């Protein structure tokens, strides 16, 4: 099962390395990892997507807690949550396909961020499934380059 963990950690040199070292050393996998400062510059938020059965996720959570630099670990995928990823795709855009690329990007609510005589670079954001879908659609047209941010996620606010 896929899990999305949100980890608050102290913004100290080496703190990220403690987290990634824990994953490699204990044989846990990381599908994506995204990290940046929070409102408090002394604290970073790290969103980590991993896979494993219940026991493994429990171990991952507990092992993360055990790291001295880690403040809080929450499995946002346990409840309702929003996730977003951004992708930059440089796709072939020649005489016959320029219009089609624009149509596809429009459908995915993306936008063109760079243009050359033979390519467009486009930006699309959304959950991982949407990113996959846009890549699948653009692939036959000819993707020259792709850069993804990895997922960030946030639990939804309680309804009441």
């Amino acid at each position: 099962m896929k899990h999305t963990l949100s980890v608050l950690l102290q913004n100290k040199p080496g703190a990220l390395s403690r987290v990634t070292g824990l994953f490699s050393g204990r044989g846990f996998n990381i599908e994506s990892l995204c990290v940046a400062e929070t409102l408090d510059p002394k604290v970073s938020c790290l969103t980590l997507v991993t896979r494993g059965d219940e026991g493994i996720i429990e171990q991952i959570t507990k092992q993360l807690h055990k790291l001295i630099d880690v403040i809080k670990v929450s499995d946002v995928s346990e409840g309702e949550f929003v996730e977003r990823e951004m992708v930059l795709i440089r796709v072939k855009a020649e005489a016959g396909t320029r219009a089609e690329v624009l149509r596809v990007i429009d459908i995915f609510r993306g936008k063109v961020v760079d243009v050359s005589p033979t390519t467009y670079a486009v930006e699309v954001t959304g959950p991982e499934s949407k990113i996959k879908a846009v890549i699948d659609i653009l692939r036959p047209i000819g993707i020259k380059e792709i850069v993804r941010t990895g997922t960030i996620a946030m639990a939804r606010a309680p309804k009441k």
Partner: protein
Amino acid sequence: MSKMTGAQAIVKCLQEEGVNTIFGFPGGAVIDLYDELLDSDIKHVLVRHEQGAVHAADGYARATGKTGVALLTSGPGATNGVTGIATAYMDSIPIVVFTGQVPRALIGNDAFQEVDIVGITRPCTKHNYLVSDPDDLVPIIREAFYIASSGRPGPVLIDLPKDVVAATIRFPEKKKVRMQTYQPNYEPHPGQVDKACRAIAKAKRPVLYIGGGVILSDAHKELTELAEKTTIPVTMTLMGLGGFPGTNPLSMGMLGMHGSYASNMAVAKSDLLIAVGARFDDRITGRLDAFAPHAKIIHIDIDPTSISKNVEVDIPIVADCKLALRAMNSWFDDWAEFDARAFADKHQPWLEQIKEWNEKHPLTYQQEGDVIKPQYVIEKLGELTGGDAIITTEVGQNQMWTAQFYKFNKPRHLLTSGGLGTMGYGLPAAIGAKLAFPDAMVIDVAGDGSIQMNIQELATAKQYGANVKVVILNNNYLGMVRQWQELFYNRRYSATVMEVTPDFVELAKAYGAAGLRAKTRDEVEAVLKEGLATDNVVIMDFAISREEGVFPMVPAGKATTEMLLV
């Protein structure tokens, strides 16, 4: 707030922490600190190899319960210490290791004797620090001692750039360390204690399975009280030996790969396994699906990651072992219906069964002619020391025979590398223990292979009058690997024959120590007696039967009931 140099601040911090002995080896990056040590009342023990410094600090910590301290220089000094740090990490031993580092301006430049020791030791320390601001130095040292000794203890490393040690800093007032992100839980949850005690009250075939956590939390008295109050048989891991008296009638000895037949059978047939400060290591469980298949499992451990890591636990209690056991004892004391006699009666058939297993396959060995059996040496050693000596071991057959045949009655009397299995641990650890307790009898039980891994520390022992005794069970083999090759690799002794072994008696003399040798069984007692009585560092070299094996043995990956017996 007074001003002083970093070096003076470090010494002052050590004094604040009550450190009076440290183990180390100097070098360019720590020379300022060594200069300061010369004028302090802290005793510095100069080892002969940095691995020895960390093991000695570890041995000191295991014997005393206090935090051990090692001081190493940068680069190779630091990397030589890594095995010692990993050893302490695997066995949860509180030590603080200071390493020198090149000046801050040179970090990352591949400077002379520069190594990223914080990066190297990240996976084998509880926490580590590079002091990048001189004003952080004192708070970091205080935090390091707090982290090392609290919760589940472990090694903490502090990397000290040379210019930080030389800098002038303000020395802040001492105040209690409080950390936002690290607050270990000691108190047991009353609801979990209640569940555990109810399960104990219902059980017919309970077993207490105790590990190093009992010793680390000084819970041996509480454990003995619970076992005796409820008449529950006790088995110990290697790290748990001494946590319950080995001569108590409820003791079944060690369990696991080289555990007693009764222990392994009892766990397999038990209906309630009460794990206290133990972590279900693969050397204990054997094949996981066959481990304690009929038992409900209670697990007391201070580290939440230990719970349900290898074996699914029914009743977890995340707490300090001592406090949890105390709460359980009170639960029974407060229970109106509690009757110790009724428990004893209820468990009588179970104890009979265990006795039967013990009689069927006791821990034993076959004496052949006048050859020296290693088990006999350990038995005699136990007799002559009354089980009172502090015993360290190396790793391999020597370690297992010691665990099986020496009856440990007290905690902190067996110092051995359990988790990492570090050959070369025993001699420096013995020196650390001896310097902590100069009047105690401290004995390293070694093999001819492992003693050579840190034999240079004989010089350290001599220099500081740490008159430790070394018992070498000499079979001219790397015996444990040889045993596996004999049993599972068709007797193909690849790289386990020690074709050249030094004359240990002469070697002892070269170091100014005493050397004794026994070649036949009837010489054993006399050599031991003389060696123990000699007021010097002593090596006793016993030429043991060469192909003696350690039994019982559970082959790796088998169920613990599938034991190879003598």
